[in-house]
C-alpha cells in the first residue's frame, strides 16, 4: 500500500515513474499523509496571510495565526477531540460507529466534577487534598471504560447494531449527566486536576516548561532514529530490500527537524505578564523592565494526546489486538473463521473508546475548570469527522491513528482560524461541513486513481 501504485514489474515502467513516485517509493511514506500535511500547511499559511492583511501582527507571514501563542492554543484546543478520534478510528475500522462519545464525556465529567467538589469532601477528603485528582482521574478512566464495555457487550452479545446502541447512549448518558447534577454547573475543579486542561492554576501552569519540552523533543528524535535503525536491522536479518541510505537519512532528518522546530515554536510562547507579576510577587523576584520570558512549554493535554496517539498507534499496528481489529473490519466472517473472538474484540474496542472519552472528559472539564451536562455536545460528530477527514473509511477496514489526529487538527485549525478572523459562526459551520465532504471526496478520488 505504501510503495507501488503500479505493482511495478520491470525496469522500464519504473523509469517512467515521476520523481515524486520514486521518492515516495524509496522513503515508503504514505502519500496521503503528505496530502494532509500539505492541506494543513495551506490552511495555516492562508489564515496567517489573510489575518495579516486585516490586522498585521508577529506571525510567520505577518498575521495572527502562525504565532507561537496561537499554535500553542490550537494544539490544546485539538487535544480532546484528537484523543477520542484515535479510538473512533478503531471503532469505524471494525465497521461500527460510536455516537455516544460526547454524552459519555459529559457524564464522566459531571461525575468526576461532583466527586471533586461534593462527594470526596463529604467523605472527609478536604478540597485541595492531593489525592483528589488521582481518584478523579482513575474514576474517569474506569467509568468511561465500563460504559463503553456495556455498549460493546450490547452490540456483540445482544446483537443490537452499534448505531442503535450508541444512539441510545447518546440520549441516555446526556440525560444521566443532567440527572447527576440537575442541570447545575459544577465548579471549580481541584487545583491539581485543573492542570490536566493546560490552564494556569494560580502560578502553576498546566504545561511542562522549556527545559522539559526540549527533553521530550530530543527523546522523540532519539526514538525516530532508533526506530529507523531497528527496522533496517530487521530487514537485513530477513534479507529484505533495504531503503536507500539517502531515504533513511531524509526520514530521520525531516522527523527530527519537525519535532525540534515545533518545540522551538512552542517554547516561544511565554507566560502572560499578569501571571509573571503574580509569580514574581509570590517568589520575591523583581521583574526586569523588559519583562520576564518564562516559556509555557508543551501543555499537559497536548502531551496526553501525543501519548494516546503513540500508544494507540502501537496497539493498532504492533499488537494482535490491532491486527484483529483491522482483519475483522476487512472481513468479519474471515476473522471469525480464523479463530478470532470477534465478539470479545468488539467489547474491548468499545471499552477502549469509552476510556478515551473518559480521558477527554478530564481534559475538557479541567480546561473549562467546570463540569456541566452541556460539555461535549456534538463532540461525537466532530470526532467522527476527524477520523473521516483523516482517511478512515466508513466501510470499515481502513484508517490510521495519525490520520485521525491530523484530521482533528485540520478541523480545529479551520475553526480557530475563522474565529480569529471574526467569521460569523454560520459561515464557520458551512466551511467545516463543506471541508468534511470535500476531504472524503478527495480521498476516494485518490483511492480510485490508486487502483
Amino acid at each position, binding site marked *: 500500500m505504501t510503495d507501488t501504485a503500479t505493482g511495478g514489474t520491470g525496469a522500464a515502467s519504473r523509469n517512467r515513474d515521476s520523481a515524486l513516485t520514486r521518492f515516495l517509493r524509496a522513503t515508503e511514506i504514505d502519500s496521503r499523509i503528505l496530502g494532509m500535511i500539505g492541506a494543513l500547511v495551506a490552511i495555516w499559511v492562508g489564515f496567517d496571510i489573510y489575518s495579516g492583511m486585516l490586522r498585521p501582527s508577529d506571525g510567520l507571514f505577518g498575521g495572527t495565526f502562525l*504565532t507561537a*501563542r496561537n499554535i500553542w*492554543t490550537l494544539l490544546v484546543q485539538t487535544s480532546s477531540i484528537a484523543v477520542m478520534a484515535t479510538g473512533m478510528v478503531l471503532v469505524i475500522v471494525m465497521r461500527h460507529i460510536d455516537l455516544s462519545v460526547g454524552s459519555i464525556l459529559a457524564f464522566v465529567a459531571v461525575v468526576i466534577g461532583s466527586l471533586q467538589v461534593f462527594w470526596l469532601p463529604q467523605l472527609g477528603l478536604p478540597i485541595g487534598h492531593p489525592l483528589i485528582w488521582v481518584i478523579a482521574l482513575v474514576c474517569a478512566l474506569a467509568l468511561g471504560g465500563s460504559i463503553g464495555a456495556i455498549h460493546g457487550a450490547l452490540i456483540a452479545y445482544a446483537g443490537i447494531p452499534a448505531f442503535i446502541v450508541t444512539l441510545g447512549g447518546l440520549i441516555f448518558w446526556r440525560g444521566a449527566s443532567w440527572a447527576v447534577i440537575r442541570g447545575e454547573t459544577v465548579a471549580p475543579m481541584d487545583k491539581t486536576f485543573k492542570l490536566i486542561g493546560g490552564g494556569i492554576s494560580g502560578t502553576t501552569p498546566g504545561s511542562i516548561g522549556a527545559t522539559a519540552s526540549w527533553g521530550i523533543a530530543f527523546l522523540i528524535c532519539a526514538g525516530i532514529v532508533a526506530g529507523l535503525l531497528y527496522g533496517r536491522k530487521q530487514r537485513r536479518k530477513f534479507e529484505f530490500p533495504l531503503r536507500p541510505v539517502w531515504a533513511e537519512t531524509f526520514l530521520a532528518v525531516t522527523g527530527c527537524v519537525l519535532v525540534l522546530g515545533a518545540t522551538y515554536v512552542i517554547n516561544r510562547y511565554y507566560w*502572560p505578564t*499578569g501571571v509573571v507579576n503574580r509569580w514574581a510577587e509570590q517568589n520575591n523576584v523583581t521583574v526586569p523592565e523588559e519583562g520576564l520570558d518564562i516559556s509555557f512549554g508543551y501543555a499537559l493535554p497536548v502531551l496526553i494526546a501525543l501519548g494516546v496517539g503513540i500508544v494507540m498507534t502501537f496497539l493498532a499496528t504492533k499488537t494482535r489486538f490491532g491486527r484483529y481489529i483491522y482483519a475483522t473490519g476487512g472481513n468479519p466472517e474471515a476473522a471469525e473463521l480464523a479463530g478470532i473472538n470477534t465478539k470479545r474484540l468488539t467489547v474491548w474496542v468499545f471499552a477502549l473508546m469509552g476510556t478515551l472519552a473518559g480521558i477527554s472528559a478530564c481534559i475538557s472539564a479541567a480546561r*473549562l475548570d467546570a463540569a456541566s451536562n452541556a460539555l461535549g455536545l*456534538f463532540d461525537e460528530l466532530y470526532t467522527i469527522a476527524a477520523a473521516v477527514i483523516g482517511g478512515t473509511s466508513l466501510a470499515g477496514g481502513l484508517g490510521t491513528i495519525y490520520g485521525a489526529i491530523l484530521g482533528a487538527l485540520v478541523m480545529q485549525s479551520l475553526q480557530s482560524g475563522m474565529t480569529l478572523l*471574526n467569521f460569523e459562526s454560520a459561515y464557520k459551520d458551512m466551511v467545516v461541513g463543506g471541508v468534511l465532504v470535500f476531504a472524503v471526496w478527495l480521498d476516494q478520488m485518490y483511492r480510485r486513481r490508486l487502483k
Partner: protein
Amino acid sequence: MKFAVKTLLASVALASVMPAASFAEGKTIAVSWKTFQEERWKTDEAAIKEVVEAAGNTYISTDAQLSASKQAADIEGLVNQGVDVIMVVAYDSDAILPSFQLAADSGVKMISYDVLVEDPNALYVTFDNVGVGRLMAQTMLEKGKTEGNFAFIKGDKGDPNATFLFQGIMEVLQPNIDSGAIKNVCETFTDGWKPDQAQRNMEQCLAANNNAIDAVVSENDGMAGGVVSALEAQGMAGSVPVTGQDGDHAALNRVALGTQLVSVWKDARVLGKTAAEYANQIAEGTDVTTLDGVSTFNGGPKGVEVPAFLIAPNAITQDKLAEVIDAGWVAKEKVCAGVTAGSVPACD
C-alpha cells in the same frame, strides 16, 4: 435595582389583599405546562401551588410533553372540567391561540405564563427579557468599565433570545460606542450556548487582540465560566469584568470570588408567586385591567397589545449576594467556597 424594589412592593401589596379573597368558596386554577421534564418548572410549580392553596383554591395541572396538539387538547379538557383560570406555558404561542379563544368563549380566564401568547384578553406574566440585556450592560457601565475594548460572547445563533439580549445590551452601550469610548473588538455566537465553545472563542479573541480586552459581555453564566477560564489562563481573571445571567451556583461563586462582575437572576419563584396571586384575584372575578401593577405590552411579533406584568430581573453583584442566599436559592457555602474571609460581606 429600582425594578427589584418595585417588584417587591408589588408582591407585598398583592399579598396583603390576598386573605380577603381566600375566604370565598374554593376556585380551581389550572396550569398547562409545555413540559415537565425540565427541573426549572418544578420550582415554578411549587411557588404557584403554595399561593393557590393558601387562598383556599385548588391547583391542578397538565403536561403537554412538548406537543402543541397535546396542549390544545389539555386546555380543552380543562375548560370542560369547568376550571376558573388557566395559566399556560405555551409550547407554540401561535398554534395555541384558538384554544385561548375557546376558553374565553366558555368564560375561562387565561394567563400566559413566561411565554407570550398574543391574545388581547389574556394576562401576560413574565420576566422583562429585553431588560436582562439592558441590566447586564447597565451593571457593566455602573460597576465595570465604561470604555475600552469590549468582547461580546453571544448565545446560540438559532435562539432568538440571544438576539433579544444583544438588542438590550446594545441599547445601553450604543452611546458609548458612538462616542468611541467603547470599541467592539470581537463578537461571536456560541453554538448551543456551550461553555467550552465560549472558552475557545474567548481564547481566539484574546490572541487576536494581544490580550487588550477590557471587558467581556457574556450572555449567560455558563459561557461566562468559559470566558473566565480563558482569562485566567492569561492571568487576567478578576481584572476584566464579565457579565452573565441565570444565577448559576458556580457563577454566583465567581461573583463572590470577583472573577465575574454580575449574574442577572430571574427568580422563578417570584414569577410563580406573582402569577398565582393574579390568578387568585382573577378567579374571584377581578377584571384583568384593574389588577394592581398591570400595564400593557405590545412587543410581540404581531404587535398585539396585551395586559401584562413584567417582573424586573435582579442584577446580582458582589454586594447583593446576600439576596440570593437569603432567598434560599443557593447555600452560602456554595457561594462562598474559596472566598478570602472579610473580602465579601455576604460571606461573613
